[in-house]
């Protein structure tokens, strides 16, 4: 088995700071500060997000590509995270093969009274490229920001529009690739 964060306290605080940066500026590409040996197929940014956000209180759903024994053993050891059998039952979801991912509507969008009980997705993609691609706007974005994500399926952006339309319900998505991530939140409007 692989070790977790070298310094669990300070490293997870640094990573959490980058998470705050990402959610306050949706669509901005943020460095995830972690030297981490992640089990295949997880990228360092994906693994860092998992170690920082997951614990015994947050049932996790894994897609088939992520649900390898080494990954499951590693997450259970370092995060004590319980696994959810169905996407709808999960607080967090880890998607390593977005081409085959279920639609965003398959995950728990919270309730009108408690929208904060919704699921958060960590979607590992091939690459995140700024300055080109989809136009994003909304809270935390001055005017607009452009983001191109390589590896998500064709209907992903339509799902993101539907997800935005359900506000205040809906899910929030972290997209991770290599050592960077970007947040795509339910408050974010997706244009062409």
């Amino acid at each position, binding site marked *: 088995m692989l*070790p977790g964060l070298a310094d669990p306290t300070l490293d997870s605080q640094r990573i959490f700071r980058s998470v705050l940066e990402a959610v306050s500026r949706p669509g901005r590409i943020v460095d995830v500060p972690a030297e981490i040996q992640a089990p295949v197929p997880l990228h360092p940014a994906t693994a860092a997000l998992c170690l920082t956000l997951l614990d015994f209180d947050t049932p996790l759903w894994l897609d088939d590509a992520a649900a390898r024994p080494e990954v499951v053993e590693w997450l259970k*050891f370092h995060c004590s995270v319980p696994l959810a059998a169905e996407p709808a039952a999960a607080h967090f979801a880890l998607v390593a093969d977005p081409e085959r991912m279920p639609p965003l509507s398959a995950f728990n969008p919270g309730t009108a009274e408690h929208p904060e009980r919704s699921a958060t997705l960590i979607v590992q993609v091939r690459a995140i490229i700024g300055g080109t691609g989809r136009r994003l706007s909304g809270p935390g974005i001055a005017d607009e920001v452009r983001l191109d994500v390589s590896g998500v399926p064709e209907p992903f952006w339509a799902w993101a529009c539907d997800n935005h339309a359900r506000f205040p319900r809906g899910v929030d998505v972290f997209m991770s690739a290599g050592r960077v991530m970007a947040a795509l939140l339910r408050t974010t409007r997706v244009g062409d």
Partner: protein
Amino acid sequence: MSSTAARQRWMSILAQASPVELEGRWREVSAPPRHRLLRRPETGLVMVRGRAGGTGARFNVGEVTVTRCAVELEGGGVGVAYVRGRDQRHAELAALLDALLQDPARHDDLEQAVVIPLAEAQAARRRAAAERVAPSRVEFFTMVRGDE
């Protein structure tokens, strides 16, 4: 003894050994293996719960300081330890020995060189404490009441 029960036994003995004794025994271990820390020693609190009289409702006795550690040997064996107190070296040594004791090739030697002497020292300490307090033992009786 099942393998789980056997492992529980030695983990308990290692956790309850005094850190000085454990360090002394560790020095006698031949060819200590290379290892890395899966979870470096970290100290936290564990809530201890009890039942009044052993059968009553559960209640919280109090929190106890615990240090835990997990190591992986170069060959792949994993050892874990949870020890009372905040001695990080104690937790690391106990985790290392837990990993080594699971290796059938090394188990018997370590059992003789480390586990049995530690267990005997602990039993002797318990006996001495029991003998020390035995003279002050008080027995409580309830007399049968006249109206029953």
